């Protein structure tokens, strides 16, 4: 038992697993860059929040989850959706506002939903989805289903009352939720030190009696280990866990953000800790992968992203006659 657990916490990093993780991080990076490009071409409209720089968090956490687990994310969720298994083309189509998109084009960038992969958004009111996550875990507990709910949110959400209510309920009811804080240091444009009196965010878990941990979110292997540890504990105890991943967003908050609130030098400093080269250099040193492997993976990713755009270009708009469809459920006979 102990040995098994140990193994699941530190999975043997074989060649295939290493390639997969690298592929996922690169897929997010290039998908996001392409999304920005499509935004400037006005193919994508509305809000667009990119995950560039934070890839290690989604990739590291998602690999710890099982298909039956529930996943809830914020409006900066393309990366999570990709890693969870939504097809890049379906996400791109969603951002194009096309009915072949994962939410029929109705949600756009901020509202990716997918029942098949139990991906519950794409939630764009900060901290609004935390209590829902608790409720989903409560349902699992009541129905005696052996699964957990993973809820991603930013450190900005932790200043909301809704965060505190959700943490209290989860602890009170002892339900299996992984509260996953992606601390990228900025709530839109306001730095952590201006929004939280206690900037050691993981300490807030203790107030609710929730086991908490913190990890360098730029280090994929560290995230994997922390996520596996947290998830193993939740599966074993059925209790919530609070994990803070300290990370950084390399790009602007959204496409409307002029980034007046931080120095370019700060961004450049963080880019030295870019999780993708960081991870690849490790793989090189360990002689797990080679430069040739990297080029090959990069080529595959670029092809997949190109195909996503090609697919979105072929997709259709939902007929206006269907505007009100699904405001209410269709009659079940």
């Amino acid at each position, binding site marked *: 038992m102990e040995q098994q657990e140990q193994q699941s916490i530190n999975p043997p990093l074989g060649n295939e697993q290493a390639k997969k993780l690298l592929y996922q991080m690169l897929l997010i990076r290039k998908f996001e860059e392409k999304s920005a490009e499509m935004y400037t071409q006005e193919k994508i409209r509305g809000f667009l929040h990119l995950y560039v720089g934070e890839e290690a968090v989604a990739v590291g956490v998602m690999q710890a989850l099982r298909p039956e687990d529930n996943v809830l994310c914020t409006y900066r969720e393309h990366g999570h959706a990709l890693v969870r298994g939504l097809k890049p083309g379906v996400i791109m189509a969603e951002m194009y506002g096309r009915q072949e998109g994962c*939410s029929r084009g109705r949600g756009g960038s901020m509202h990716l*939903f997918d029942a098949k992969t139990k991906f519950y958004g794409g939630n764009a*009111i900060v901290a609004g989805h935390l209590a829902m996550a608790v409720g*989903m875990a409560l*349902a699992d507990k009541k*129905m005696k289903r052996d699964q957990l709910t993973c809820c991603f949110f930013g450190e900005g959400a932790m200043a909301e009352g809704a965060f505190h209510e959700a943490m209290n309920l989860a602890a009170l009811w002892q339900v299996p939720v992984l509260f996953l804080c992606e601390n990228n240091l900025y709530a839109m444009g306001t730095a952590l030190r201006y929004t939280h009196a206690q900037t050691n965010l993981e300490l807030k878990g203790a107030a609710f009696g929730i086991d908490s941990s913190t990890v360098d979110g730029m280090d994929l292997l560290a995230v994997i280990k922390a996520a596996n540890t947290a998830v193993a504990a939740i599966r074993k105890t059925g209790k919530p866990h609070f994990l803070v991943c300290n990370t950084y967003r390399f790009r602007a908050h959204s496409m409307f953000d002029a980034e007046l609130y931080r120095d370019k030098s700060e961004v450049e400093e963080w880019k030295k800790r870019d999780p993708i080269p960081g991870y690849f250099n490790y793989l090189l040193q360990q002689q797990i992968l080679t430069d040739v492997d990297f080029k090959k993976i990069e080529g595959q990713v670029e092809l997949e992203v190109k195909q996503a755009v090609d697919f979105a270009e072929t997709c259709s708009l939902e007929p206006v006659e269907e505007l009100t469809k699904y405001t209410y459920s269709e009659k*079940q006979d």
Partner: protein
Amino acid sequence: MPGQLITYRECIKQAIREALQADERVFIMGEDVGRYGGAFAVSKNLLQEFGPERIMDTPLSEAGFVGAGIGAALGGMRPIVEVMTVNFSLLALDQIANNAATLLHMSGGQFNVPLVIRMSSGVGRQLAAQHSHSWEPLFAHLPGLRILSVGTHEDARYMLAPALADPDPVIIFEYTSMLNLEKELPDSAESIEISKAKVRRAGKDISIITYGTGVYKALEAATELAAAGIDAEVVDLRVLRPLDEETIVASVAKTNRAFLVEDASRSVSVSSEVSARIMERCFYDLDAPVQRLCGAEVPIPYPKHLEDASVPQPAQIVTAIKTLLQHA
């Protein structure tokens, strides 16, 4: 049990009890629903009968437990979330407006939210401005929700089951001032359609269109009007969203006059909407302009005489209708 008197409170309680017995997925959660027995004793002894898994006391955490109710509904349960009174519901408005009401449409039809939220509502117990709200119009504004108003004992007893069977979020407004009111329950329950308004009294001279506490007031007024030779029809809207326009139209087409009554303040109210629909659909049927008797546009004050003056009273309905029909 024909002929037997039953309180509005007992009707709600029986409905909840029956729902808990009928479906293992149903549970109730809210502030003080368990050990306290419900702030208004609606769920008294249910904890003893069904246990703490099904009768869940929550902290004072409206956003939290309404959100958890939405999540539990997504997870396959059939939660009844009790928001102790409507006055606290705005703390959960983000959950209701941004999650419950939007998820199905925003996800392209993938995720429906089979949630029932009950809240005790209204004026009449001298609780002053912060505890006397009539916010039906506020919630009835939101597409994606079904808004029910329990104006009779029959609905108190039989509306919960169809609400729980609805695949989408339903908010049920109950009325604190009616809890102790005793009435006879119809001996056999006709199946209640929560998409339909109901004609509570048929008449030919005027349609009194109302909901909630207005229903019994309107029926009382109609009885008095009958003595004066005026045959008033009383339409209980029951469903404030989506509004049952056909029942309204049919009634007004028959009586050619409409008089709208509600406790909520007049501007941007349910009656504003009903009036507009009548103009759109029944303009040429009308023999007189639509008239309204609504709540005063004030925060509800504490003293009894001022509180009474803040909402329509049966005598005012009678006087106004006599004037409208030139019987005065």
